[in-house]
């Protein structure tokens, strides 16, 4: 199963902005229960969508993360942002079931 990479401020640019395939960034925090639930769903999706999409996570609760949190206007977590060619093309907020999220992502990936 592909590992979901834990991003830092330093690796964000290389892993997300310069990625050749679309990237789904999971903005999460340690105090957020829904984020922990979503992580289980994302782990499974990372495996199932591995050729189409890279899934990574970024700790929005870390004080060091606040510059990027502000830049991407994170005000509610879990927050998923889909990047293509370095730009946000879709934002999905809140906990979703695997089936719902897979359908939404597949639809978006086929239409961007």
């Amino acid at each position, binding site marked *: 199963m592909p590992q979901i990479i834990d991003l830092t401020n330093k690796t964000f640019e290389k892993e997300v902005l310069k990625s050749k395939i679309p990237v789904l960034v999971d903005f999460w925090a340690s*105090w*957020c229960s829904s984020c922990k*639930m979503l992580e289980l769903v994302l782990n499974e999706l990372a495996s199932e969508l591995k050729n189409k999409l890279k899934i990574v996570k970024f700790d929005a609760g870390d004080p060091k993360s606040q510059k990027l949190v502000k830049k991407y*206007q994170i005000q509610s*977590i879990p*927050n998923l942002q889909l990047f293509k060619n370095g730009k946000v093309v879709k934002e999905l907020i*809140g906990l979703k079931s695997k089936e719902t999220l897979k359908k939404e992502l597949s639809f978006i990936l086929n239409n961007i």
Partner: protein
Amino acid sequence: MPRDISKTLYDTIIIGAGPAGLTASIYLSYYKVSNLIISDSIGGKLSLAHKICNFPPEKEITGTRLKEKILEHTKSLKNKIILDEVIKLEKKDNIFSVITLNGKEFKSKTILLAFGTRKKKLDIFNEERYIGKGVSYCFSCDSMFFKNKKVAIIGNGPSAVFAVLCLIKIAKKVYQICLEDSIKGETFWIERILNNPKVEVLYRTKVTELGGENKLEFIILNKSFKNKKKLPIDGVFIEIGFEPDTTLTKQLKIKTDKLGYIVVNKDQSTNISGVWASGDITTGSNGFKQIITACAEGGIAAKSIFVFLENLLKNQK
């Protein structure tokens, strides 16, 4: 989509993994009743509580920690928990079929409904547009993103009280907007709110509109506050209570009250043979929806299910 049907016939399937469902699973396991928990999330509203001070074994504990402790106990008994959403319930020849969003089907002799209630929305224009852009339904998840900002908590019940207490520590200014003329909850916490200079409470006031260009920037009130109906705000936390989701209860024709809460007997049984209900979704415990009453209802249901299954076995012999 082809359905993946489980071969196991469980004694009980528990729908919901909050305090009621998890406690029932623990009790059932000690009765040696095979059980499966299916839920789209773990912990129910426990996950939303930033501080719990009325659960007797703990003077003060976070909802997340208490959830972990109950879950640890449940898992130690080797109980199976499936993270999925139940979308359909059927009963045929006294066997229940539980069908999930991911296309799986599970079967059992009895069912325990413990899926709790969901958060109410304000139901006003533009509400959906600002979700994640200033509108939040989870103060324990999102408060930290409003450091030194102006926020409003809408609601006057216990969950609104805890949202205010949490945001006092983070935000620059906190408005509590109440539809009624008082705050409801435990006096100890209400006094903390009323004595805090950071907080202003607006009584008998309704939010009628949300506005802002790319994110929430202001709210419109139904009456003037300091001579203005428009209040500049960075974040709104909606804490106006909970409501039952009646999708599954309707499918099995389970009796509910006018608001959709499942009507239960003293032993947590419902009007449908083989179906029990526990926790916030029921009319039980004198309407006092607490962690301790949810746990108690889970335990009572488990005992009653055990007796039902024993009688079933006796009648088969």
